């Protein structure tokens, strides 16, 4: 019985996820279509500018036909999304004169690495501190954390990145920006390279986690404060349950729920800040490539990345729904 409910819940959420992804892909496609002129114009300009060849409207028209850009927009959308779904083919990246998939390459994994390092850091820091702040409500620590939260939300992330970079350079030497040391930058993947990346990952993780931590501490603190006033806590205390065990068993368990339900929100924020932070810290991952693609109007690359980032967020939403249903069985009954 319980299994069928969980199965139905999973299925419902899965269908919802697919619908959202489909709508997102339409929106991303519209953004790709937005800049004036199309791929053929930019392709012709890039290929022939400076060569002395006089490009006529007919030439551009020919390129357009070759690439299938003369079709109506709806058909082009299905060509594009069909290529992605069926062949993992995101089209051509014109600034690099190769396929988008090649350009993106292993940057997906670097981005995933940054993302998970940031999420991990966020939860390791914010959950215990939020619980602590709620237990010691009104103390100096609690007050200090409130100030920190305000600052965490108000500091522009690029500024934070610059300041951190400055101090990191002063304290840990010059080789701190970016994701790899010089000798590993173009080296093939190896255990040493992964270890080198780990050593560089903490700085972007701290910068990106900053505002998420500020936000989550407040969430955990608020839920925890509510839960601490519940009768179940008083009853457990009356039964003589030791204080630490009591905290973990009753209110802390529930205080994690809002954090779990906002995982997708955190991923969204991290991806939102990523391009800017990447520029300052010199990270060579999707965010930085996205910005570069926008500046070059290389919309196939930009669209692919925007799609990947958003799909990751949608998937994390799905994941957090399931996780929450597992943590708090009341959820799936209500849904």
């Amino acid at each position, binding site marked *: 019985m319980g299994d069928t409910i969980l199965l139905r819940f999973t299925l419902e959420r899965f269908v919802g996820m697919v619908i959202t992804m489909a709508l997102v892909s339409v929106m991303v496609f519209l953004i790709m279509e937005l800049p004036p002129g199309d791929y053929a114009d930019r392709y012709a300009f890039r290929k022939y500018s400076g060569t002395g060849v006089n490009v006529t409207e007919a030439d551009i028209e020919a390129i357009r036909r070759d690439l299938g850009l003369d079709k109506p927009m709806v058909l082009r959308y299905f060509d594009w999304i069909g290529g992605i779904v069926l062949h993992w083919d995101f089209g051509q990246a014109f600034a690099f004169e190769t396929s988008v998939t090649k350009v993106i390459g292993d940057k997906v994994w670097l981005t995933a690495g940054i993302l998970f390092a940031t999420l991990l850091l966020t939860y390791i820091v914010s959950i215990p501190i939020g619980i602590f702040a709620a237990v010691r409500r009104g103390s100096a620590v609690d007050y200090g954390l409130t100030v920190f939260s305000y*600052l965490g*939300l108000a500091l522009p992330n690029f500024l934070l990145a610059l300041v951190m970079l400055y101090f990191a350079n002063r304290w840990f030497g010059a080789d701190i920006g970016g994701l790899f040391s010089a000798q590993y930058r173009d080296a093939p993947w190896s255990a040493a390279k992964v270890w080198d990346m780990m050593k560089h990952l903490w700085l972007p993780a701290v910068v990106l986690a900053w505002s998420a931590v500020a936000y989550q501490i407040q969430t955990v603190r608020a839920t925890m404060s509510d839960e601490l006033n519940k009768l179940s806590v008083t009853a457990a205390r009356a039964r003589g349950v030791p204080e630490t065990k009591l905290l973990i068993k009753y209110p802390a368990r529930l205080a994690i729920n809002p954090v779990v339900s906002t995982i997708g929100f955190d991923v969204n924020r991290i991806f939102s800040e990523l391009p800017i932070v990447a520029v300052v810290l010199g990270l060579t991952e999707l965010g930085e490539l996205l*910005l570069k693609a926008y500046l070059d109007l290389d919309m196939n690359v930009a669209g692919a990345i925007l799609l990947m980032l958003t799909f990751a967020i949608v998937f994390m939403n799905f994941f957090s729904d399931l996780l929450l249903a597992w943590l708090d069985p009341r959820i799936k009954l209500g849904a």
Partner: protein
Amino acid sequence: MIDATHQIDDLSAAEEKERERQLKYYSASQWTLIWWRFRRHRAAMIAASLLGLMALAGIFAEFVAPYGPVSRDTKYIEGAPQMPRFCDAAGCSMVPFINGTKTERDPVTLRAISVPDPEVRHYIQFFVKGERVKLLGFIPIDRHLIGLSPDADQKIHFWGTDDLGRDVFSRTIYATRTSLSIGVIGVLISFVLALIIGGVAGYFGGIIDNVIQRVTEVIRVVPIIPLYMGLAAAMPKEWSTTQVYFAMTLILGLFGWPTLARRIRSQLLSIRNEDYVVAARLAGARPGRIIAQHMLPSFTSFIIVDLVISFPYMILSETALSFVGLGLRPPSVSWGVLLQQAQSVRAIEQTPWLFIPAVFVVVAVLAFTVIGDGLRDAADPYSEAH
């Protein structure tokens, strides 16, 4: 009867005062009550005054800033801030002054650098004659709030100069106008959109609501800065600074509505079947009138809170976009454009004063957040005071 009069006479002055106070309290309008409660929130009051000062400086930028946003001082390039002081080696004065500068060769690099010249004093003056500018774009003035006398052979740079010798203080003041006004217009646009979209969804419910909820969810799920960047990248390169400015406000406003729309929708849904709404409907009022006249007033204060706390997102987004070169472009000045010059660790080491605009960003964002908190506490004046 006689007894009653006697009793009233017996009321002490203090009780009389208390009664008057209560009468005032009970007869005060909702907005007066909100104001009374907001006034008690000291942090929010300080934040509001700071923000007010900033807005004033921005509005009257031409008067407050000693120099124009693009005027160059070729004699003082990448110069350090010149802080007015009252004392130097030669003694003290009642009027603040700065020391003059003279050019010397750097002993190591042999580059020409400006160093303070303790021999010369330039006194700070108020309402000095300076560049001829148009206040608010149409009132010609040639007096500025603060500066050096026009006879002085140099200019004053409170917060130093950038690599082209432009005054950071003046540029920051002008940038304040741009950045704050983009926030205001952006918030207004998203407010109107939220009102329409959230209003339709919440009032009609059903399938319309479902469709709108789906679309809202799609917009909310796309990371906002990459989305803004995509729209900003589509702006034609040949657009004028004015066109770019309005396009930016439109972009920020066009996608800022989901949170507020959601709030309006859920509030409308919850009061949709209240007696007074049903009564209005039965009386034959149109949906637009019912929403605007009967439903919205019941939660206007909450909408205002949401509007105030959506400012920081607008300001931070604009700053971030301009910072990476996808938002406003020079010669426009906004906080983000100014911070573009401070993109490297080198800038922190050699010209840290270029980061002063960042202080404005942080203060503005903090101020809006604190005011939002204060308003939230005050928004429901009929609830128990803490």
